């Protein structure tokens, strides 16, 4: 598989892939700066919600945002063709009512992390992938 050309992120369930594509379309004309600002705002909302609901996985959300920041700040990544998918993953993060509702499910950010991981693998940045189980503790 390694040498094969990849056209899209793999290892996602059908509905997840479908949602990612939709997000990617929606984010097509948004700049990385706009997306990262939106992501940070979403993190702030998460912090506020976490104060009253400890089940929300704030640690994972924070980790996702720092990975996104790293991507945006890294030279060149957001300019490649593959970045279309990355923008989708960023957009997906900012929507709260996704596959696992961010502020309701104790796994609220698990789907966000999975989608991000799939996109990271797609651009060969496995080093940035998040292991969700590392964030289980409060």
């Amino acid at each position, binding site marked *: 598989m390694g040498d094969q050309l990849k056209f899209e992120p793999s290892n996602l369930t*059908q509905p997840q892939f479908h949602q990612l594509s939709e997000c990617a379309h929606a984010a097509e004309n948004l700049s990385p700066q706009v997306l990262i600002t939106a992501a940070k705002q979403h993190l702030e909302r998460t912090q506020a919600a976490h104060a009253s609901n400890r*089940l929300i*996985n704030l640690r994972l959300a924070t980790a996702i945002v720092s990975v996104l920041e790293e991507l945006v700040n890294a030279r060149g990544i957001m300019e490649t063709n593959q970045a279309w998918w990355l923008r989708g993953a960023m957009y997906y993060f900012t929507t709260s009512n996704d596959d696992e509702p961010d502020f309701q499910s*104790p796994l609220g950010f*698990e789907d966000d992390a999975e989608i991000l991981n799939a996109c990271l693998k797609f651009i060969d940045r496995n080093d940035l992938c998040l292991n969700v*189980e590392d964030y*289980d503790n409060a």
Partner: protein
Amino acid sequence: MPKVVTPTPGMRVLCRDAEWLVTRVDPSDHTHENYAVHCIGADDLVRGHEAIFLTQLDAIEPVDPRNTQLVRDQSSGYRLAKLFLEAQLRQMPATGVQPDLKGMGAFKPMNFQVQTVQWALKQLRPRLLLADAVGLGKTIQVGMILSELMRRGRASRILVLAKKSMLTQFQSELWNRFGIPLVRLDSDGIAKLRLRIPSNKNPFEVYHRIIISIDTLKNVGSYRHFLENTRWDCVVIDEAHNVAGASVPERHLAYRLARLLSRRTDSMLLTTATPHNGKRETFGRLISLLDPSAIPDPDFKEYSAEDIKGFFLMRFKEDVREDAGENLTDRMLVPIEQTTVPASEDEEKVYAALSELREETKRNKGNEDWKNNVLVQYGIYKQFLSSPESCRKTLRKRIVAVQKHSSTSPELLFLDGIDSLLSSMSIRESSRYKLLKAQLDEIGWNGSPASPRVLVFTEYRETQDALAEALSNDYKLNYSSKFEQQPKQVLATINGSCPDICLMDTVEAFGTASSELRMLLATDVASEGVNLHHQCHNIIHYDLPWSIITLIQRNGRIDRFGQLQNPVLRYLRVSTRDGMLKGDESIFERLIEKVEEINRSTRQGETVLKLYDPEAEERYIAQKGILHGDSEVLEKAAAQSSPEANELETILSQANPSGQEDFLKFLLGETDEAPSQSTTLDSADKVSSRLRLYDDRRFLIEGYRYLAELSQNYSAIEENGKVILLSAPKDLCRRLGAPSESNDVVFGATAIPSEAWPQDNQFRLSDDSDRIELAIRAARNTSGHWSRELMATDQQPILKWITERLLMLMKRGECPHITSRKLEKGELCFCFIGQFSSRAGAPLAVDAHAISFRKGGGFQHRPLREALDRAGFDSLVNEGKVGDLDAIRGPLIASAVEASLDYLRKLGHQHVESLLPLLRRENRRLRNWKNRREELLASRIEKLSPNHPKAKMYRKDLEEMDAYIRDREENWQDTYFTASTEPSTQLVLVIEGLN
């Protein structure tokens, strides 16, 4: 204005002008904003009455702890305050995953049993298949888990399903050893009960702890409606392989019943020694009863070790031998040569004829005239190996049948020949019978009262009848074959046609030393589950079933946990000179050796031939071994053609935690995270999480004495050595449902088994587990299952009653106030019991603590025990010093309450956070399951036409899956994880310093 607080168990509330003690809170609708609040009356008007209030209909107002009125305790030695505090501590639900074995019951806990309880508690909502080998004390483990759940307030509604022959045994074990009262219901009982209650009342909600036979419940369709509307805290299904469902599970009544119950219960325990029959789906179905989200495949055929891990425990004698010590004695097999005799001349003639018949059938294979059945091939032979009587009967039937068909059949020649040989024979003349008598001589059995108990198994009714007659003649015993006479005779027989009640009585008599019964002649009806080991360690296999499974089950009746003598096994054998049949002997010998090998190994007997069915084993041994003349037949697994069984066993052994290491891994959550709970498995060195000021014995005596002083008609409680004698006063009789009380009201929540009721209303209790063990043995010596002395555990209904009565000594919103010279003047110690509940009302964290106040020092939190020790609580005397009540009232109490609530809030958050990894892991598993199932179902639906019945079924599965996930979120998560907004606390004692 105080916030509106959700009622939580243990809280006192006002409703309809009366004060109540909340015992349980259930959500009453799907929003989880309304509750059904279960209460027990706590003031004069409603004392002892049970009620359920709905928050949407009634105003339920918590008694605000800030308004607590202090009452000076005027009793000598502050007995009132001490007992009141103790009662408060006793009704505090336990939390955490560590079991507390102290005072749990009368039994010697083995390490592996304690591990089972830890395993169950760690699951939060115990759902476990106990698949330990025959005779390893599965009932004890169920009792331990139930006790722990009761302490956590999570087993007030228990339903036990068992086989009819096991009901009394199960019921009495749980009562004698653990003080868990199960009320037995049969169809008659339910009908009678329904006459006593309003017609729209659900009979299953009257009694709170019920034991019932699977057959009673499954056969009567009319209960379905009631069962669908009943929620249980814990459902136990004994011998659960009976509910695994046959080929068409949907039509299998017992399976449907189990599935219905599994959806209506919080915890579920299944026990069986044979968890599968070699087919993946039977095991898969049992696991899916425990958790529908374990196996993605809707047909339960495809699953991996990972899917079923954690849902079952399977251990063998060899695994626990070190643990069990003297509870597991080594068995002795009397060498087969010593139990072998040569056939007599007459018998040799029959063997020769049988041999010819076999030869002839072989030669004529395929010939139309010889189209005979298994009966002719080996059935008649097997019968003759048992007794001439048994053989003759079958033979004659065959002759009639063949004659009807064709009077010239060549088979008749042989059959008639054998028949004429048999006509002059009887069991009394047979070598096998003479051998039996010789063996009885060896054992020292002669039918006299001094004879040891002997269990004799035979395969056939005719042999059983003939044996009973011959033995009663030879040993001059009165014997009647009437069923109801069996328990009263020296020689008793049980078989499949025996009514359940007679069977149970006979089994009970066989386990009772004082009964006359000396020998039990049993067919294989008695070979599953029943305990025959209490007074017997001699087993004689009169004839040999051609099945490893049957032999293991037979031996398991006396070779089980708790057998104190070495079980002695005898297999009777008659050897023949006949060349052709000679080869069979080595097969029989191998069969016996195999059974002993399995006994010493960590495998199931089923795994030898992999046929999982006694009849299939018999057919296999007969056809492949006896008829083929292959003496190696037992060395090869029969099911070479069935890779499924092999695969299943591999999966099971991978998923089964073996040894301490796996256990630790599981208990710690299988990850490297630092566990929040104590990591030590040895609970002996762990300080009990339950705080007690009195041990069970002192609490029973002093609590009752205090109550007796307040009411005139309580007779005195007596101490007689280790035993405490308590004559139940009228209100206790009523509460426990004494048979003499003809109440209109059924006290179903507190009733004890009527069979356990003492004759003179006098209860004998002890907290010494050895003493109770002796009493249980004494009962077996004299009267049967029910011990006269009972274990004083904290879940024992009598202790529960004392606790509740003591709690009501204080009026609404009152708390005792005492003084201590150990504390500085002006120092105040406010003792609280508070809890943080989940949204569904289950206690997440419960804590007893104290808030000390010193002038200039502010408020300080302390663990209750520490605060009491500082005040010298245990040795306090009442000096009549009044203290300054007025100074304490008002703002001081309010501030102490605030400090207590603050502390509880912190505790609650800590608790939720410590559970988070577990919750996330579990939800991840669930999500994984959902994804895999969706994919699987979608791919299957794709291959079918839209109207295919299977496709419709799969679509329904998809819908059910969504409903299940929603239910999990609503019920499971809200019960164990989501914290309610506010903790609650109760001021239970104030100590004022006088120094």
